[in-house]
C-alpha cells in the first residue's frame, strides 16, 4: 500500500529498461489516495517516419547519466506540481512497431497539474537525457536520429 504522505510509487521503477515496458503494471502502481487524476503518456513505435517505412527502432543510452537525469527531472516535476506520483521508464535495445518506447505517469490532486507535469517530463527526457534511437527501415537500411523532433 502507498501511504497518503508518500509521493513515490509503491515499487521503485528503473528509468531504463532493456525489456518490454509493463505499462499496465506501472499504471496499477500509480494510484494514490491523494490523487484525483492520473495521466499516462506512452511513446510508441510507429511504422513510418518522413515517408519511409519503419520496421523498428533500437535505443541506446549512456545509462549512468541517463538514469540520474531522468530521476532529477522526476524529482523536479514532483516538487514543481506537488505530484503524488511521477514515474518514467524508457526502453533500451530493439523495440518493434507498436511497442512502447517510453512511459511517463503522473498523478496529482487535480488533472491540470498531472497533464502539465507529464508533458514537462517527457519533453525534458526527449531533449536532455543521453538516449538515442536508430531507425531500421523496410529497405534494409538504418539511420541514427540526430536530433529530438519535439513531437
Amino acid at each position: 500500500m502507498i501511504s497518503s504522505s508518500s509521493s513515490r510509487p509503491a515499487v521503485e521503477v528503473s528509468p531504463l529498461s532493456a525489456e518490454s515496458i509493463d505499462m499496465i503494471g506501472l499504471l496499477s502502481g500509480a494510484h494514490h489516495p491523494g490523487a484525483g487524476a492520473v495521466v499516462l503518456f506512452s511513446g510508441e513505435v510507429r511504422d513510418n517516419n518522413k515517408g519511409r517505412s519503419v520496421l523498428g527502432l533500437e535505443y541506446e543510452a549512456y545509462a549512468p547519466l541517463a538514469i540520474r537525469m531522468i530521476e532529477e527531472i522526476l524529482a523536479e516535476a514532483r516538487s514543481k506540481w506537488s505530484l503524488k506520483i511521477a514515474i518514467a521508464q524508457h526502453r533500451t535495445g530493439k523495440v518493434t512497431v507498436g511497442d512502447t518506447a517510453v512511459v511517463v505517469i503522473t498523478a496529482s490532486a487535480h488533472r491540470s497539474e498531472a497533464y502539465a507535469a507529464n508533458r514537462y517530463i517527457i519533453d525534458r527526457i526527449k531533449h536532455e537525457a543521453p538516449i538515442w534511437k536508430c531507425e531500421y527501415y523496410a529497405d534494409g537500411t538504418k539511420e541514427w536520429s540526430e536530433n529530438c523532433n519535439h513531437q
Partner: protein
Amino acid sequence: MARKLRAGEDKMTIHVYAKLKDYFEPEFELEETIGNTDQLQEALVRINGGASELLSTCRFAVREGFIDNTFKLEEHDIVVIIPPSSGG
C-alpha cells in the same frame, strides 16, 4: 592518433555513442596530450574529418558528469562524447 583499447595503460579513453559510431570505434584511446574539450574535438576531427559537424553539436562527460571547455582533462580520463539526444 587513435588506437584500439588495451587494458592497463594510462591513456585517455574515449567512448562514443549513436551516430558517432559511424565515424569512430565505440571505445578507443588517444596517444596525444589533450587538455580540454576544444583540443579533444580538434583531435577527433583530425582522425575523421567527416564527424566535424556532428562533433560541434556534442556534449562531453567525465565521471558521469557533463564538462565544458574549462574542465582540465587528464591523461587517464575516460571521456564520453554525447551526441544530441533523440530518445522518446
